[in-house]
């Protein structure tokens, strides 16, 4: 071997061999692909978590001359603090519906429940009403406690035509909470002092809600009369993220 290498020809052949083996490479992968970050597929809500929100005089359709006639359900986004068009009912863009008699029955947005206004859509929401004032509701209810049906939280059994635990007391004759006068008949008394509504939003966040009034610019019971302009909802709420176990206001 040494004799071969000493031979100039041998060295040249070796050099040729080395140069061939190290040259003429083809790069099959000229561009290194960067991992593409996932785009946020749903726009984040406008309402920040843990901050108290107030909605005043949210107006829904009503007609005292034809009270039992079906009215258009109203849809509200708690994540964005705004009304959502009726045409978007079967989407996840709303969280709480106002339907039923005088649009006073509340429901969450759930695409899996055939009675829900959002049926077929991707909403994962639900609703429950607790027998506690707003300030005392600190724990997020268990998932199993949320109801997914439509028009499920309305009149309370403390009043007339109650349908279980509701958010308001309906005083048909004016004598339960009123003085029996004609103007105190047919008044709907929101009960924030003993009732709090909790909604699981369409996207899975949670809101605890203080229903304050359904009368225009009238937020306390002394201002509520039969002829006070009504079905203007005022409520306060705080939103906490999906997976939370506690309601906090920071």
């Amino acid at each position, binding site marked *: 071997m040494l004799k071969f290498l000493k031979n100039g020809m041998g060295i040249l*052949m070796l050099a040729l061999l080395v140069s061939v083996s190290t040259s003429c490479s083809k790069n099959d992968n000229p561009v290194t692909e960067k991992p593409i970050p996932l785009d946020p597929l749903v726009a984040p809500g406008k309402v920040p978590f843990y901050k108290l929100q107030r909605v005043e005089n949210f107006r829904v359709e009503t007609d005292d001359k034809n009270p039992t006639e079906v009215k258009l359900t109203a849809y509200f986004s708690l994540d964005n603090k705004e009304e959502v068009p009726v045409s978007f009912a079967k989407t996840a863009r709303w969280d709480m519906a106002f339907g039923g008699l005088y649009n006073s029955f509340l429901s969450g947005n759930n695409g899996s429940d055939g009675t829900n206004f959002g049926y077929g*859509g*991707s909403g994962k929401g639900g609703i429950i009403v607790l027998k506690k004032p707003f300030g005392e509701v600190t724990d997020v209810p268990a998932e199993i406690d949320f109801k997914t049906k439509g028009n499920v939280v309305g009149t309370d059994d403390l009043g007339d035509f109650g349908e279980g635990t509701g958010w308001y007391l309906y005083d048909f004759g004016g004598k339960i909470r009123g003085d029996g006068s004609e103007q105190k008949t047919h008044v709907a008394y929101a009960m924030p002092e003993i009732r709090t509504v909790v909604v699981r939003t369409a996207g899975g966040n949670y809101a605890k809600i203080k229903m304050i009034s359904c009368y225009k610019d009238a937020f306390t019971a002394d201002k509520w009369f039969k002829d006070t302009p009504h079905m203007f909802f005022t409520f306060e709420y705080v939103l906490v993220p999906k997976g939370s176990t506690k309601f906090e206001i920071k």
Partner: protein
Amino acid sequence: MRLNHLLILFCLMASLLFVACKKKIDYPAQPNSKIESFKVPVSDGEISGVIDEGDKTITLYLPFFYQLDVIDPKIKLADGAILKEKIVPVEVMDSKTTYTVVGADQSSSTYKLVIVIQQITPLVLEEVSTATATTKWGIGNGFIAVSGNFNTTDVTKVKVYLVGTDGKEIALSPSASSTTGIGVSLLPSGKTYRLANLQVPQTIDPGIYKLRAKVYSLVAEAKYPVEIVYGQPQVTYAGVTAKSGETFKISTKAEVFHQFSEFSILVNGQKVVFPIVSFTRTEAVIRVPEGTPAGVYRPTLKFEGWPAATYGWTVTLTP
């Protein structure tokens, strides 16, 4: 020896050539203006649209049983690209929606959205008439029912029309007298859906009409027509209060007023006729004759072609 030198030189040159021989091959640049995914969330997951880069279409196959009115898509774009349009819900029967993507490389692409609703065909509308008997519906009748294989319980998905000789479709509307709904029955012939409490519009003309139903993009027509007629007029609960000499109104949300000939009450057993000042299909203006004593009275109304009827609501005349 000389040959050896040449050979050595050749080998040197060859070595140099081989070392210099490197070529990088890059792929041709692709436009960056692309939609990478189009997904529609539904109750049990997501439906992905099929993106065809060749003809720039996004085809979404939507099963009917979700009963959607709109789709609310989630769109993923190529890195750095932007969408010119705002992403908003799209009606499922829409055929005009496009999406324009502008890439980071400033290239632009426009995709057309095609929504295909997957339905069970054919749509069948059950007959309400026969070859020998044509069903009659009164103008304003709010208790109309039709049946078929609608495959939905959503009343807004089933559109029912009366089609006149001019080919114009006149929709039956939700009843003003009762709640419109769809009931499902399982019969030996199969599952059938009954859409009840539709209303014949109060404005329609009498005549013979074809009956047509539509569910999403499917259309069915009954073989035998229906006849629209003036039915027995109805009065929506009135509860009138008026004074002697004044006028009051009564109205109907159901079968319309037609040939309204008399309005009367009984005062001490004697018939007192109230003049009919005017009437339309849906409203009548009645005057209380001067000197009619105050009291609570049940009225009797007469429409030509129908027996006179005394109503349960009352006319209260005040002093």
